């Protein structure tokens, strides 16, 4: 009986501490809110590890080809809203879609028009920087790394309370 009570007390104490800690941490769902600006598109890895002079940067031309059929095509500023709306704007165009997070907050799902859905791996998500990876379908060097900088935090009324 004494052992059972000890087990139960330890469990309750642990659970209380766990949820108290969890409530103090901002979730990825709140960290992603706001406006993000695309800073760079790069190849995640070089073809040949001996190729020291390999240029990881992706040119605008290749970038345009890779993204041609994607929802994110020509997007430069990504605005994540608390209502799960995603507004993407470029030099000459803008479009709206929906966003959701999956897994432990490490997968960004973007849904566009006509049931088009794309998944991006969130490699890094800090208050000021976001790095997304995705597998390009084209015969280019596999994973593309997109880096963003936060240019505007979410409005107070937009912030999600976990």
């Amino acid at each position: 009986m004494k052992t059972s009570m000890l087990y139960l007390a330890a469990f309750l104490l642990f659970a209380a501490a766990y949820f108290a800690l969890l409530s103090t941490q901002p979730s990825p769902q709140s960290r992603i809110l706001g406006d993000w600006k695309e800073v760079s598109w790069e190849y995640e890895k070089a073809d040949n590890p001996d190729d020291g002079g390999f240029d990881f940067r992706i040119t605008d031309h290749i970038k345009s080809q890779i993204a041609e059929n994607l929802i994110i095509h020509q997007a430069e500023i990504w605005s994540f809203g608390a209502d799960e709306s995603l507004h993407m704007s470029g030099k000459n165009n803008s479009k709206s879609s929906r966003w959701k997070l999956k897994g432990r907050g490490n997968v960004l799902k973007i849904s566009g028009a006509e049931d088009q859905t794309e998944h991006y791996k969130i490699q890094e998500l800090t208050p000021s920087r976001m790095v997304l990876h995705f597998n390009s379908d084209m015969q280019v060097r596999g994973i593309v790394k997109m880096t963003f900088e936060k240019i505007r935090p979410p409005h107070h009324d937009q912030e999600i309370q976990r």
Partner: protein
Amino acid sequence: MIKRYRDRTNRENIQLGALTAFSAGMVNVVSVIIFFAFTSNVTGHYAILAEEISKGNWYEVLVVGGWILLFFLGNFTSNLAVINLNKSNAYLAHSLPIILEILCLLAVGTYIQFYYRETLFETELMVSLMLFAMGLQNGLTATVSNAAVKTTHLTGLTTDLGILASMFTKKEYRERPELRDKMRLLLSIMVSYVTGGVCAGLIYLRVEYNVFYIVCLFLLVVIGYDFYRIEVANFLSKKQPYYRKTLKNQAA
């Protein structure tokens, strides 16, 4: 199938291992498709936990740590039921973890069907419930089979298979029946797990979240089989003196 015998036969272990591994494979693949998270293998979660700690992502550390703890809690609950209820009601002791697992999976399936809005909080909660369910199942199968069957522990299974395969290069080991039995058991678990995963992937395209109900049906077969055997054995021992004598002789 889930009753704890002092001397379980390899056939019983294969039946138990194959059915539960099939359902574990299904659950794992469906969770990856819907939630982008594994729910029946914990080794990967330990690696992710270490990665998130190194990155300083404390929210993710707590989420993944919580998932691992729920798998632990599933194993704990399963064995707790067996060791506490075994004397008073052996069938209940062994079927309770599977009943709890069915309830967890039914809850997940029903929630997805009617309420799921794909928020991160919901995803984390569903994955938690599924990891707890897989812990329950793994704990029970390991307990009743004297640790011979671990349906979601494919790392250990592949290790054992590799070791056995190398042992079978020598005739003296190849001819030992217990090692051949073990090889059959491990292969049946591996094939069932993969088959379950493939089936879930294919079925999901047609029936979506209903996969969870199909998994529950498989688990019902596991507990139903034992119930049937116990009822038949009871009936025969009460009504048929010849069978009672035979059963008595078998027990001896």
